[in-house]
Structures are given as structure tokens and as C-alpha cells.
């Protein structure tokens, strides 16, 4: 899967551009603050219809403009599709193959993108939200309909939280809260089931990569932390029962606090190195190795699921990794064979054997060398 055309108008600080990206490596070189990350953000927008920086719509539009349009032409197994995303303060509009789509279809997987940026370097250290996002994005790439369950879970959750607040204010309707908890349990259990399934299928890829990166010196592990008593081999019925019970036990506290404390929205991934918590004990270099293995394993897992490599966006990570990790990453990307966009302040950080095209990014102007 790769982009054969990429363009944008009025996107952030970028001057209107239209590129024919290289099938393999695209190196975006430029000084700080020139627009390199903005370009990656534009590619990401074509895939997820949102920004990876959690930017609001109007932040994506050049300061002096009203709307921005990003355009891409994607080839996957000889089939070409176009996608066009228009963003203004009022909202977003998406056109696939020239046709406007009003409601996002549940199974939209026209362009798979994996991002590896500076934020990911804290994946093993920061709060659980980043880790949930990691597993959710990866699971979504593997099972596009996963997002439907997530959305429904989120909807049921918002409703239950509202009911908790109403109940605390004296408006408890047991029948209504039971009905929404039932929805919460159904969709929540399914989300957890999918995440467990994902981890099971992800683990072998991760083990192999981590073993390679650390030259067999360390053994990494990933565990899922959910409601009390959750077993990773539980079937759907057991997950539903377990989650229902956890909600039951938390209800009084939840009512006092006005929000739901248990469920996939508060679950976490626990990373281990040699059976000890990476978050607590890992060295700087071990954190880096772990994150790198997670990202490369993600590429492999998605490749296994969809038969092609996703587009890989590498934002300024090379300068953060030491030389050895950097070389390992590049050699993986070289072998994998997917399309890669790399930003850097100095191309000498990037050693790839494959063909590469270098783009200079200066004050929003992108020019091919």
C-alpha cells in the first residue's frame, strides 16, 4: 500500500504542493519549524481523518485561510483509490474516489498508516492513554470493524456517566441505568476480547523483534490489565460476566464521583523486561529498544493481517535513537519493503540501502531534489 500522489492546499504552514512520493523512502529534510511534521500530519489525516496531534479543525488550516484540502492517491495491489479531505472550522468533508461520504463507513480501511513519532518514545513511561491508543489503532488496522465496537462502547459510557450524575442528584431510574449498563457490558466485553486477541497475535512478532534488537539479552512481555480477575483466556461470556460484576462493585463509588471507573477506557498494557515492570525499572536504552520493537512488530502484525505493509511515518525519531537502534530500525524498514516518510533535520542520520527521494522543506515550501 503506498501513496502515488500527495498534495495539499492551505494546510498549516505548507505552501500548496503536489508530490509523487517515492515507492520506498521519502526523506523530508529541513531545519526546525519548517513544516516537516505538518507534512506527515497531512498524510495521517488522509488515513484517520483526524490529526495525530489532536489538533482542532481550524488549527490545521493556514492562518490566513478558511479551509484546507489534502489529497492522496493510494495504490493497494494495483488498485488505485483517491481520497480527499477538506477541513474548515465548521467541520470535515471526505471524498473517496470522488464521491462525498456523509457518514464514515464502519469498515473504512482505505489507507493504513503507522506513525512513529517523539510521543511514542514515552509509550513505556507515560500514562495509560498512549498505550490504549497504540493497541486500539493497531487492532483497528487488523480488524476495521473494531472501531464500531469502540464507538458504541464510548457512547454507552457517556450515557452511563450521565445517568450516574443524574442518580447522584436524586434522579435514579434503576431500569434505565440497567439498560445502559447492559449495553456498556456488551460492547466493553467485546472491546476487551478484541484487545486480548490482538495481544495474543502480536506477542510472537514482538518477541522475535525484541529478541533481535537486544541480541537475545532480554526477554520482553506484554500483559493486559483490565477489571479485577480478568483472565487473558476468558471467552466472551466470561468477559461479560466479569465486567458486569466489576461495574456492580464500583457502582456506589462511581455514583459519588460521577464517572465510570472500570472498563476498557481505563485499562492498561503492562510492559515487562525480564518479568519486571519496564515503566519502573527499564533503563533509557531499554525503553527505546522496547518502543522500537513495539512499532516494528506493529508493522509486521498489520502486514500479516492485510497482506501489505502500511505506510510508515517516522517523525524525527532517528535523532533520538542511538546509532545502533537507528541502524536496526533502518535495516528493518529496508527489508520490509513498504513506503516510508521520514523527517529529519539532517539526512546523514538516515542510512537506507534502498532507493530514496529527498525532499527539502524550508519555510513551508517542499521541493524535490
Amino acid at each position: 500500500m503506498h501513496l502515488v500522489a500527495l498534495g495539499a492546499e492551505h494546510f498549516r504552514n505548507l505552501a500548496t504542493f503536489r508530490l509523487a512520493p517515492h515507492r520506498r523512502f521519502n526523506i523530508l529534510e529541513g531545519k526546525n519549524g519548517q513544516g516537516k511534521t505538518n507534512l506527515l500530519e497531512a498524510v495521517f489525516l488522509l488515513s484517520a481523518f483526524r490529526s495525530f496531534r489532536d489538533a482542532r479543525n481550524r488549527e490545521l488550516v493556514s492562518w490566513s485561510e478558511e479551509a484546507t484540502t489534502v489529497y492522496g492517491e493510494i495504490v493497494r495491489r494495483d488498485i488505485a483509490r483517491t481520497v480527499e479531505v477538506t477541513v474548515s472550522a465548521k467541520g470535515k468533508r471526505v471524498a473517496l474516489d470522488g464521491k462525498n461520504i456523509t457518514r464514515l463507513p464502519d469498515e473504512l480501511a482505505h489507507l493504513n498508516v503507522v506513525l512513529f513519532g517523539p510521543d511514542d518514545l514515552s509509550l513505556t513511561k507515560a500514562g495509560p492513554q498512549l498505550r490504549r491508543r497504540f493497541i486500539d489503532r493497531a487492532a483497528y488496522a487488523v480488524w476495521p470493524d473494531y472501531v464500531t465496537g469502540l464507538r458504541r462502547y464510548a457512547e454507552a459510557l457517556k450515557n452511563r456517566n450521565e445517568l450516574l450524575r443524574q442518580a447522584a442528584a436524586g434522579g435514579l431510574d434503576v431500569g434505565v441505568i440497567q439498560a445502559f449498563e447492559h449495553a456498556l457490558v456488551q460492547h466493553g466485553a467485546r472491546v476487551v476480547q478484541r484487545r486480548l486477541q490482538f495481544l495474543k497475535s502480536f506477542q510472537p512478532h514482538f518477541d522475535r523483534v525484541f529478541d533481535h534488537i537486544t541480541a537475545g539479552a532480554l526477554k520482553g512481555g506484554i500483559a493486559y490489565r483490565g477489571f479485577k480477575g480478568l483472565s487473558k483466556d476468558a471467552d466472551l461470556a466470561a468477559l461479560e460476566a466479569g465486567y458486569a460484576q466489576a461495574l456492580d462493585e464500583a457502582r456506589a463509588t462511581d455514583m459519588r464521583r460521577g464517572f465510570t471507573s472500570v472498563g476498557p477506557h481505563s485499562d492498561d498494557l503492562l510492559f515487562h523486561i525480564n518479568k519486571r515492570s519496564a515503566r519502573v525499572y527499564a533503563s533509557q536504552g531499554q525503553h527505546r529498544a522496547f518502543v522500537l520493537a513495539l512499532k516494528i512488530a506493529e508493522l509486521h502484525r498489520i502486514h500479516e493481517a492485510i497482506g501489505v505493509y502500511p505506510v510508515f511515518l517516522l517523525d524525527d525519531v532517528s535523532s533520538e535513537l542511538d546509532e545502533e537502534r537507528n541502524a536496526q530500525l533502518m535495516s528493518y524498514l529496508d527489508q520490509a519493503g513498504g513506503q516510508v516518510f521520514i523527517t529529519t533535520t539532517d539526512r546523514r542520520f538516515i542510512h537506507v540501502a534502498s532507493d530514496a527521494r529527498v525532499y527539502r522543506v524550508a519555510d513551508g515550501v517542499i521541493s524535490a531534489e
Partner: protein
Amino acid sequence: MPLLPPALDKLATLLSRLPGVGKRSATRYAFHILGQPEEFARSLASALEELVTHVRFCVDCHALTEHEQCDICRDLSRDRTLVCVVETASDLVAVEQTGAFCGLYHVLHGVLAPLKGIGPGQLRLANLEARLAAVGAREVILATSTDVEGEATALYLAKRLAPLPLTVSRIATGVPMGGELEYLDQNTLSRALSGRRAFEG
């Protein structure tokens, strides 16, 4: 904003409250109406007038009607042992058009939606149990949509009706996720109806 004569502006403001109509198209519609022969505006006004004076909700099932009781409730050839609960009057029309259902209806005029402040008290539910007893219903089919609110509403009703001596069933989940009845093609909808299952909740 250009200055419009107050009457025109008033109409545009009212039209912009219609779903999917922004202020700009509303203003365009207002100008369009003004540009038509006067007769058009007058018949539009009287149609609206008739709508609010003649159309009301059936006292029994809350469907739209011009009488106290709707045609379906008055039709003695309909199967009174079967009652289909739908969200909206247009869902009723959708089910009716399949030709696959010959029982009675009950229109909720909404679904439970805590975030929008809609609880059981905001739905047309007050007479449901009494009515089921009065018509001698033996089965209630819950045909609310299959999104989170529709599912929760179905579950709520199933629990509430459980003590009554009748079967509560749910339309088959052949209805695509998130599907609203109104937008389903008739085949899918009649399959959903005939494939309904007794409620397990």
C-alpha cells in the same frame, strides 16, 4: 449579514430550524418562496395551518392521524394480539410498507437518551401496559433501532414488560449495526421482522 425585510428574515430563521437546513439555504428558500406566484405562499401557509389543526397523535398508539384514533387502531381486521413498538411515526410507515406486519403499533416518539435528557417520562409510554391489556396482546415486538440508545430502550422495555403475560421479542439483528429502520430497504426490514427472537436480557 445583509439587511432583509423583517418578514423575510423571520421566515428564513424559522426555516433554518429544519434539519439539515443552514441559515444560508433557509434564506435562499425564503427568497424562492417570495419569487413564486403569491398562490404558492398562500397554499403553503394553509397546508401548515391544516397540519397543526388536523394532524394529531392517536390516543392509543400515538401514530399520526386526523382522528382521535388512527386508521390502524380502528381497523378490526388487524391482528390485535401483536403489537410492534417503533421509535418514530416514519418507522411505522417503513414497517407498514413491508406489508409483512398486520398487527398494531405503539409509537414512542423517541428513545431513551440520558445525554439529551430523554427518560421514560419523555416517551409515550404512560398508557403502554394498560393498552396491551386492553387489546389482549400476546406478543410485543420491539423494533427500535440497533444503535446503543435503541438497544438500551428495547432492553428497558423488555424488563418493564416482563411481568406481563405475553412474549416480548426483538427484531432480528439482520438490521445493520447503527441502522435506522427508516433507511432500510423493505426486504431487509421484513426479514428482520420475521426473524425476530424472544428477548433474552
